[in-house]
């Protein structure tokens, strides 16, 4: 680790991702989780009564549910102590619900996002950017042309107030109910911030919509909620970036993502996450896909101490399609337990899962997946491909897919391979004049190409930079 750290300090990526700001907040809730805390959060956010009631019900469920402990080879969560977490911090901004203009943001917040390259990305003409700092969205902007067509992109807190009908119908009711798992329940109780995206019928949002989340305070939890509703025959690409600097204490990130893909709609949800290496990243992400709809999950999981994340698609309507492309990278002391879940509940549904993982310096990656084909989902097909690349003998790579097939007229295939970086490939590149490090980096870049191809260039570059950085650390 020490060589990693030294190296981090010398690169500008250190400056981009590991810097932290002095904590300066308007409201900080007490540590731990009580009914009182929830009431304070809800009141502070000016929420309607129904939302408070939902939070309180989720809290009860959270308190009753056990921690997941019996999954084979799961990350150790014994350090996750909810009582030590500050569930809610509102940054000090005068304008409620986010600033209108970039210049209105306090200097240090703006500076933080500058370093992360958010305005740069926006200057590159992305259609909208929302940036969450701690628990609330602080900046949001979307090009007017989309607004005119009825596209809504706003911070989730604001959506509760401004679009109560839609939110009340969809928020943690059909897709990710708090009863789903312990951390979904926790999320339901203390969620804060996040994005609300609504795309009306027949509207195609041609530019990706972007949000960036950042945790800046030690020992805090971040619980942003993302709700995407794509009405019939609409199309949208939503991108989320996440990062948190490093602290001595642990952080908890427990986000919730709900995506509704209506008939014939197409949603791509892409994310590159780079949490600090003391963050527990325990998320629930799920999409419900109606007839002929398409859901695409593209994700790069970097950083964190432990990640447990299995984006799920429920293919509810005939002809629905799901594509998963994921990459996980685990270095020293990291346990990235991630995968994909697909439920084929209707005929003629299709899914493909492509999962790549890289482990080095004692890192541990695990692909944990589930493909369920329900009785009656005839002519469904699924193909799962997992490839793992290992750098050294301290690392571990596991693959644990589950396939539950209740229908005979199907086509199900799973394949996984594990290998070390090919000596022959390295030798070939060296014979062409590359040094050892560059050769290995080039091989890794080729290995992750299927995912970088799916991302807009800024994110692909960021992902490549992050992986390069991790690699340099190991080889330098």
């Amino acid at each position, binding site marked *: 680790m020490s060589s990693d750290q030294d190296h981090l300090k010398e690169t500008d990526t250190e400056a981009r991702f590991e810097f932290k700001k002095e904590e300066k907040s308007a409201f900080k809730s007490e540590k731990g989780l009580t009914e009182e805390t929830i009431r304070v959060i809800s009141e502070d956010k000016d929420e309607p009564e129904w939302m408070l009631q939902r939070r309180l019900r989720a809290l009860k469920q959270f308190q009753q549910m056990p921690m997941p402990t019996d999954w084979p080879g799961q990350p150790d969560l014994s350090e996750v102590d909810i009582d030590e977490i500050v569930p809610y911090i509102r940054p000090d901004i005068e304008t409620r619900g986010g600033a209108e203009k970039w210049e209105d943001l306090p200097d240090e917040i703006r500076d933080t996002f500058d370093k992360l390259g958010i305005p740069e990305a926006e200057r590159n003409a992305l259609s909208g950017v929302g940036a969450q700092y701690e628990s609330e969205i602080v900046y949001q902007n979307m090009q007017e042309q989309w607004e005119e067509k009825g596209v809504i992109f706003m911070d989730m807190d604001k959506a509760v107030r401004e679009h109560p009908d839609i939110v009340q119908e969809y928020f943690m009711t059909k897709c990710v109910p708090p009863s789903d798992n312990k951390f979904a329940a926790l999320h339901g109780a203390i969620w804060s911030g996040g994005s609300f995206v609504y795309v009306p019928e027949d509207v195609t949002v041609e530019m990706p919509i972007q949000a960036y989340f950042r945790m800046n305070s030690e020992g805090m939890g971040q619980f942003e909620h993302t709700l995407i509703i794509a009405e019939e025959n609409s199309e949208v690409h939503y991108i989320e970036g996440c990062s948190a600097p490093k602290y001595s204490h642990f952080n908890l990130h427990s986000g919730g993502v709900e995506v509704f893909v209506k008939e014939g709609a197409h949603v791509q949800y892409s994310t590159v996450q780079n949490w600090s290496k003391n963050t527990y990243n325990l998320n629930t992400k799920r999409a419900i896909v109606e007839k002929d709809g398409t859901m695409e999950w593209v994700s790069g999981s970097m950083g964190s101490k432990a990640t447990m994340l299995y984006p799920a698609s429920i293919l509810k309507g005939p002809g629905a399609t799901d594509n998963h492309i994921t990459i996980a990278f685990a270095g020293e002391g990291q346990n990235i337990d991630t995968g994909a879940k697909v439920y084929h509940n209707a005929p003629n549904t299709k899914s493909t899962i492509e999962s790549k993982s890289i482990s080095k310096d004692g890192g541990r990656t695990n692909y944990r997946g589930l493909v369920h084909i329900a009785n009656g989902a005839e002519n469904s097909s699924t193909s799962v491909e997992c490839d*793992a690349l290992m750098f050294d003998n301290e690392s571990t790579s596991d693959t644990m897919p589950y*396939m539950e097939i209740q229908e005979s007229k199907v086509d199900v295939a799973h394949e996984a391979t594990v290998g070390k970086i090919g000596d022959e490939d390295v030798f070939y590149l060296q014979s062409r004049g590359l040094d050892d490090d560059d050769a290995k980096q080039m091989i890794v870049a080729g290995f992750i190409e299927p995912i970088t191809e799916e991302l807009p260039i800024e994110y692909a570059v960021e992902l490549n930079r992050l992986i390069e950085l991790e690699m340099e650390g190991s080889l330098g």
Partner: protein
Amino acid sequence: MSTGLQSVLSEGTVREISEGRDEPEWLLQQRLDALEALDDLAFPAVIKTPGRKWTDLADLDFESFVDPLTQSDEKDQVGPSGVEVLPFAEAVDAHPELVESAFGNVVDPQTNYLTALSTALFTSGTVIYVPEGVNAEDVKVRTTMNSRSLFNYTLVVAEESSSVTILERQQTGDEVDGARYYSGITEIATGENAYVQYGSMQDLDQETYNYQLKRGVTDTYGTCNIVDANVGSRLTKTSVEVELEGDSSETKIVGAFYGHDDQHFDIDSRVWHEGEHTTADLVTRGVIDDDSRSVYEGVQNVGREAWDTSSYQRENTLMLSDESEADASPKLIINNHDTEASHSATVGQVDQQELFYMKSRGVPEQLAKNMLVEGFYVPVLDEIEVEELREDLLEVIRARLASRTA
């Protein structure tokens, strides 16, 4: 464990079994230790995803199955000269030291509740002893179960540079009203440079619950291949495990199953790579029809010190009916990066294009389908060295397919 077995299971029962067979003190002690451990042992691990468990062995009503004092079977134990194929009790007399040192060495009797139960109660068994340098082909052990419950034990010891191919067959004989329980444990010690192919053909009647664990350990340059064919039983939980302990040792685990009616098969193949330069190849093919159900788990576990490992796994399931269900979970656990490993699993139905081709050549649809199903098994049939096992398996497959058409 509350299985309601207390009424039939007691120290007295175990002593009665052991004394009736004139067993040495060490074996009685092993049995009693296993009996005592029952209270603390769990049922064998089955695949489960959060919130779902596919095979619930703990739900079995053991009290109605297990009647340890009336165990009865017919056994046919044959082998070529040079190799000893002995009933367990005889082997204990003939080779007391060998049996004592090998018993419980590869399969810890206290692995789980069902292995301990088997160790405490077994009355039927075979010891196959292949001395150094001996080549033995076609060792055959046929067990016909005639009682409500039967606990069987097989011990294979293949000494340095020996080779042996074995067929062990389990079937049911005399009619018994209601459900039965068959339990079998097989231990295979593969010596240095030895070669073993152990094949099992389970064709118990469909009222029988079946638990089997077959486990092999290899020494340097040893090869331990296991064929596990399952066609019978009401519910089967079978585990095939090989521990590649010696450097440059190998294993090939071949599985075949055919489920129909409401049969349930829970099958796992596991291999541990511990030595250097070890190779494993896991091949399983199964067909399920009617309301039957299969659960498959394959684990390739590469240890920290297992340099230069090659490990491959393939599992294919053919579903012939809409009511059948198939679950698969091929797992890779890799702790050494100097590894080439892959696994794959597929589930599907008879290939429509192949079917169309055959029909276009004038083969009637049902016959074409049957031929394709038979052909589906070829990759596993090809691996079976004992001809009788291959023929038996093929015969069952054909009979099932024929009854399907009728």
